[in-house]
């Protein structure tokens, strides 16, 4: 690392796309399968000799595998650069960190913008509906291919946290510890409702073309931007919005029209516009659908404790944030109570923050120190140097 680089910028030790042969399809919950699955992933740090130091980082809805390295499209630092790196809670000098783009995504893993092997055209809406368990199954295939049998930890926030819970339900024997941040064991009516607003905004854009925009040379940028704007509000708290913008105006005086008079309007428009450069509208539909379908305990008759029964030897740590109204503390508490009922070794902290759901991506010293403490003590228990 040269002196000119920011200390948090670390170089990925690997960034690759793995392609599975058609004979090894990804079998989906819907009954469909994806042949010739490709998974794009990044790794940081080195796998140790007995392959016991691997950490899988699961990303949220609009994130990707560039967790700790510069994003190739935006040029911005990785979305979790403050958590992953030398000396950080996920210390790249000690652990081998893997982050893969989810199935259905748009940063290199097979998704609706990938070519359908049957036609050679992008899948569009012919792409099968995927679920959180499907994403996790694809990650397990990746780990198999990388020769990583067990994970020292699986960690993620928001949709990443849902994947963490799914890992615990589906592959408890492959986990030593699991860290679930700002998530829920199922999507609430309110969660689904906000996602539906986003999807309708995309589908109402004339350039969406029933999902076939990719091969008609257009993009539903306006719809996707509105979806992002609506979603972005849910990631912040009222207090954070008020502190950041209040009723501040862009210019002196009102425009007496519908320009972005208020700074908060301008900010949201910018968020929307920047998002369409790096995200695919159909991927947004598919991934929000996967989240809406998420109901971890449904497979066990709604009994969440039963779902975690086989994971009672896994060390769990659950985090929530006081001002997160998208995945509020009550949801995390339900997870923790189920873990306790299952006899699992669970820890839980509600972090005091006014930054809303997005707090998990931001500089939250209490969370980072609690996370560092949990990971370090788990490493000691695992016998990692």
């Amino acid at each position, binding site marked *: 690392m040269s002196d000119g680089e920011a200390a948090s910028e670390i170089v990925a030790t690997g960034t690759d796309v793995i392609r599975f042969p058609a004979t090894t399809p990804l079998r989906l919950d819907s009954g469909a399968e994806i042949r010739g699955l490709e998974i794009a992933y990044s790794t940081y740090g080195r796998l140790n000799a007995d392959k016991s130091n691997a950490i899988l980082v699961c990303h949220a809805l609009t994130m990707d595998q560039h967790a700790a390295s510069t994003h190739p499209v935006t040029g911005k630092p990785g979305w979790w650069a403050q958590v992953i790196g030398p000396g950080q809670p996920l210390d790249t000098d000690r652990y081998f960190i893997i982050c893969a783009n989810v199935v259905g995504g748009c940063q290199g893993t097979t998704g609706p913008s990938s070519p359908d092997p049957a036609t050679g055209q992008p899948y569009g809406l012919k792409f099968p509906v995927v679920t959180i368990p499907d994403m996790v199954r694809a990650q397990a295939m990746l780990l198999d291919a990388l020769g990583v049998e067990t994970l020292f930890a699986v960690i993620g926030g928001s949709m990443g946290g849902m994947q963490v819970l799914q890992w615990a339900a589906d592959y408890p024997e492959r986990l030593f510890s699991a860290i679930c941040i700002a998530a829920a064991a199922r999507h609430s009516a309110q969660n689904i409702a906000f996602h539906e607003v986003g999807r309708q905004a995309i589908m109402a854009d004339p350039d969406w073309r029933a999902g076939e925009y990719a091969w008609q040379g257009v993009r539903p940028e306006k719809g996707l931007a509105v979806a992002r704007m609506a979603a972005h509000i849910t990631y912040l708290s009222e207090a954070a919005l008020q502190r950041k913008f209040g009723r501040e105006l862009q210019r002196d005086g009102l425009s007496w029209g519908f320009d972005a008079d208020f700074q908060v309007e301008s900010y949201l428009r910018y968020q929307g516009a920047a998002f369409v450069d790096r995200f695919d509208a159909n991927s947004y539909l598919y991934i929000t659908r996967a989240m809406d379908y998420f109901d971890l305990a449904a497979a066990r008759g709604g009994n969440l404790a039963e779902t975690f029964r086989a994971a009672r030897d896994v060390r769990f740590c659950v985090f929530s944030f006081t001002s997160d109204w998208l995945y509020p503390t009550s949801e995390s508490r339900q997870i923790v109570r189920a873990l*306790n009922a299952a006899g699992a070794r669970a*820890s*839980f*902290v509600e972090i005091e923050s006014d930054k809303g759901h997005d707090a998990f991506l931001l500089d939250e010293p209490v969370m980072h120190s*609690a996370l560092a*403490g949990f990971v370090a*003590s788990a490493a000691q228990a695992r016998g990692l140097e």
Partner: protein
Amino acid sequence: MTLVRQDFREILRLVRPGARVLDVGCGEGELLELLWREKGVDGRGLEISAEGVSACLARGLAVVQGDADDDLDYFPARAFDYAVLSQTLPQVRQPRHVLSELLRIAERAVVSLPNFAHWRVRFDLLGAGRMPITRALPTPWWATGNIHLCTLRDFTELCDDLDLRIEACAALADGKPARPIDPKQAVENWRAESAIFLLSRATPDASAGPKVAKQDLFS
């Protein structure tokens, strides 16, 4: 040396090696760490503050942010060998429910609490006509978290009422070793500043662990 430290020493003496222990109101995890280090105890904690939980995580302890009133209900029956409630019972909203829950989820409960009938407390009230401030009750009335203070007599009556057996009891006093007492004796209700109880269900089930003689508990 404080009353709390005295508490810990008694609890440490009393807990079987390798036992499963839930510390309700575990603070920064001093007791759980002590139990783990000295007795190889598989400890869990319940703590109300994020800072406390965070400190516990750094010590490698498994601790859930929550409180006795709301979170005990979610633990399965007999999940622990011991549940510890150290100087916390007067601070819960429903002491009766909490006590009952402790002995549902654990085979035994270790409960310590200040005695509001200690002679110093009585004299403060009788003589000065003020809410007492003593070593066991060091906080002024307007700042204390204690909302359900009781006397040894009150507590032993509650135990009888809940069909709990007092396996052992010791008086705690600052700077002095714990003194085994019969908490039902009127004189102890005057003398004990604070007391620690080992409780179990009066009708133990077959899964109860090995019996331990009283003198081994508070010697």
